[in-house]
């Protein structure tokens, strides 16, 4: 008789407590005594996928407005800084997330500020106009004034025809940002910025009971608002290969290939996350050793998951070595996909991917603010405790599953390709 003891994959758990207030706000607390700081993280369940297709980029523009002050706090940053804190936010296709990290003894300042801007935001026209031009410059700086900066802007509408993932969080076009006005801002605010559409996650050197008392004090009596229903059109299954060729002033050609995959909680996500790590997660990965070093077709080759809540994409992205024919490069990538659909990855490859996952996970637990966000993110996906179940999902991935996911995913009719070529060729 054997007794199986799993020594290697000892799971490090993130402990937390959770409550829902009468206002509908979900509150999560994780205590971390290794830091003098605390992070309050507020996640709003509203992202670019919730936008009107004629007014894309709005969720992100709105994130900017959340820093523009209220009647009570005209300059949001001032009290944060006075309390020795820092704060920021980001918007993606699924959600908008705000955080404040500050010395733990000033935690109540963060509650005051977040509850204030959840209800009392000043949406005056001039603030909006100014943030429209700031966001326009952000659009230019990140996507238009960088070589290869527009690649992902091109990819989304190619890979998605129906689902709102067809536009990026920054927006489909600068002209959409221009169209935003106070009326649409007010409507967005009232619809999405309510306690029942938000998750407050707190991590750091704090007593959970005190956090729940503060949450009750600052958010407990708010009107819950109606939790908006999300009815997004699902992306129909792709039935033929899509291809787009563009010419730009860049020094080298770039190849992008995207494949539809399952949603964030599907088994496919975990299998493909480990598989893409085996393909391109590190210097000894297959693409690095075969496509970059051995065949010298690419100077850089990566593959990763878009990682969105709804069914997402696996994205291959590679910069070609000088003189490589892009069709030849693409064939070499396809050869690797075909191999995955036929043969098991080696036990050493799987073991490596597991070790790397374990390191990454522990690394992400070094930071209280990371833990605060992760807990909120899992809660919005359905259950904060998901953070503690992922380890098992990853560790149980088998070689067989990798073969079958490859067969399902890396099919010609499930592919969208961009040939991004230098102008002078």
């Amino acid at each position, binding site marked *: 008789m054997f007794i199986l003891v799993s020594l290697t994959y000892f799971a490090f758990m993130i402990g937390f407590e959770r409550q829902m207030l009468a206002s509908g706000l979900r509150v999560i607390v994780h205590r971390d005594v290794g830091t003098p700081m605390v992070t309050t993280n507020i996640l709003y369940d509203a992202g670019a996928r919730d936008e009107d297709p004629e007014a894309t980029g709005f969720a992100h523009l709105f994130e900017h407005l959340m820093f523009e002050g209220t009647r009570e706090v005209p300059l949001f940053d001032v009290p944060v800084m006075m309390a*020795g804190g820092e704060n920021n936010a980001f918007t993606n296709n699924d959600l908008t997330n705000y955080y404040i990290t500050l010395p733990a003894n000033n935690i109540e300042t963060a509650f005051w500020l977040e*509850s204030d801007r959840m209800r009392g935001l000043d949406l005056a026209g001039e603030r909006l106009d100014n943030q429209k031009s700031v966001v326009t410059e952000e659009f230019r700086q990140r996507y238009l*004034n960088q070589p290869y900066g527009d690649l992902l802007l091109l990819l989304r509408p190619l890979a998605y025809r129906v689902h709102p993932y067809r536009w990026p969080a920054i927006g489909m076009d600068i002209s959409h940002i221009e169209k935003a006005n106070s009326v649409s801002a007010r409507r967005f605010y009232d619809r999405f910025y309510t306690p029942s559409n938000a998750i407050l996650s707190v991590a750091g050197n704090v007593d959970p009971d005190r956090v729940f008392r503060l949450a009750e004090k600052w958010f407990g009596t708010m009107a819950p608002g109606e939790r908006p229903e999300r009815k997004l059109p699902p992306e129909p299954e792709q039935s033929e290969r899509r291809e787009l060729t563009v010419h730009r002033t860049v*020094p080298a050609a770039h190849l992008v290939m995207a494949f539809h995959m399952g949603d964030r909680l599907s088994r496919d996500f975990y299998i493909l996350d480990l598989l893409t790590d085996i393909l391109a997660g590190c*210097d*000894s990965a297959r693409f690095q050793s075969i496509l970059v070093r051995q065949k010298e077709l690419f100077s850089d080759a990566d593959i990763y998951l878009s990682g969105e809540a709804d069914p997402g994409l696996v994205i291959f992205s590679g910069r070609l070595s000088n003189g490589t024919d892009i069709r030849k490069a693409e064939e070499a990538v396809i050869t690797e996909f075909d191999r995955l659909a036929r043969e098991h990855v080696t036990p050493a490859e799987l073991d490596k991917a597991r*070790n*790397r996952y374990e390191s990454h996970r522990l*690394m992400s637990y070094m930071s209280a603010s990371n833990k605060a966000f992760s807990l909120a993110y899992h809660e919005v996906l359905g259950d904060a405790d998901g953070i503690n179940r992922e380890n098992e999902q990853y560790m149980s991935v088998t070689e067989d599953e990798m073969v079958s996911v490859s067969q399902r995913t890396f099919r010609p009719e499930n592919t969208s390709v961009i040939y991004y070529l230098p102008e002078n060729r």
Partner: protein
Amino acid sequence: MSAQKINKVPEIITPSPGDTTFPEAIHLGNGIPVYLIGNGTVDLLRVEFVFPAGQVMEERHLEASTANAMLTEGTATHDATAINDLIDSTGAALTHAAEKDTAGLVTVTLTRKLDEVMALAQEVMFSPSFPDNEFRMLTDRRVQAFLTNRQKTSVVAREAFYEALCGATSPYGRITREEDYRSLSTDDLRRFHGKHYRPDNMYITVAGREPWQALSVLEKYFSAAGTGRWQKAPLPDPGIDPSEPGFMFREVPNSVQSTVRMGWRGITRNHPDYLELQVATMILGGYFGSRLMRRIREEKGYTYGIHAVAGAFHGTGYITIMTDVANAYRDETLGEIRNEIDKLRNEEVSDDEMTLVRNHLMGEIARMFDGPFAVADAIRGMIDYDTGSVYYTRFAETVRTVTPRRIREVFNTWFNPGEAYEIIAGGR
């Protein structure tokens, strides 16, 4: 809204920086100093190896960063593929670090894999073979990245700034050209490596939970080589030869934005004004509500961000302001920056603004020492630039006590309009 009416605004407790000192070094048998930084909460260790082998040591341009990048491209016993495979199978991250004055490796590993990772670190740092074929491929990849960077207005403006400030012949000011990559040989790298990557020319930091666990492993892999007691050798003179201040335009065709950069000669960390200069730069452009951010982003909407920084290398320092703006606003932006500096040279900062910046900086210092990996980064600056372990204690004291009058003096001393370098990189 109701919560706001019922509840009083919470009182703010003035932030304090916490403990900012660092431990005395422990010495391995052969004298290598090791700094142990504890208080980790997960079973990871971060081990960093630092050599005075940065750009300032170069006889030929690019040899410091190239020698560093080539460490993992082959050794006496393993080729590049085998090395990468060995590192990656442990799950560890091994990062190359080549900077102006130092170079080395940073490893982050599961504690249980420490022995394997240190064995590899020792191998790649002390017996790299610099194989020709890997060098050729690395060069091709670096040239391609270089050509891509040439199209970025921010990169072109940065290079033009440091060339003007430090001089085209100084290792800090040299502009990189494609032939610099092509003319380097593996012999250059072997010479550079042999001279600088030596056990008696390095120090180690270990950060994480129970870092002393690493000592016996470090002893095992790093103590055998070399018997000379470690002594910090002085760095060579960087040969600073600034050009005349003034305006420069650098064309980057087809850009939809321009990078605007303004800057001045700065001072080194041990200069008596250095800490006050940090506070001054913070007021000008170091945080979201700074003078420049308020004016140029929040009032004018010209940019997504604008920043001011004062920093230092060995033997010299810099002050610089940078932003990316639409081509149409670049001249106005330059004018607005000049105005904001002018105001700070003429009017004292209000007490409210001073308190805000004081508290903010206290929070920044506290965050720099939040967690063992952050501490390891923070103490590197103190060791590399001989500031002593009281640097942040002194900084916190300056933050607490510097007066608005003194800040105005700092702007008058170090932000002289006649001594400014002004650069625009963008479309015609």
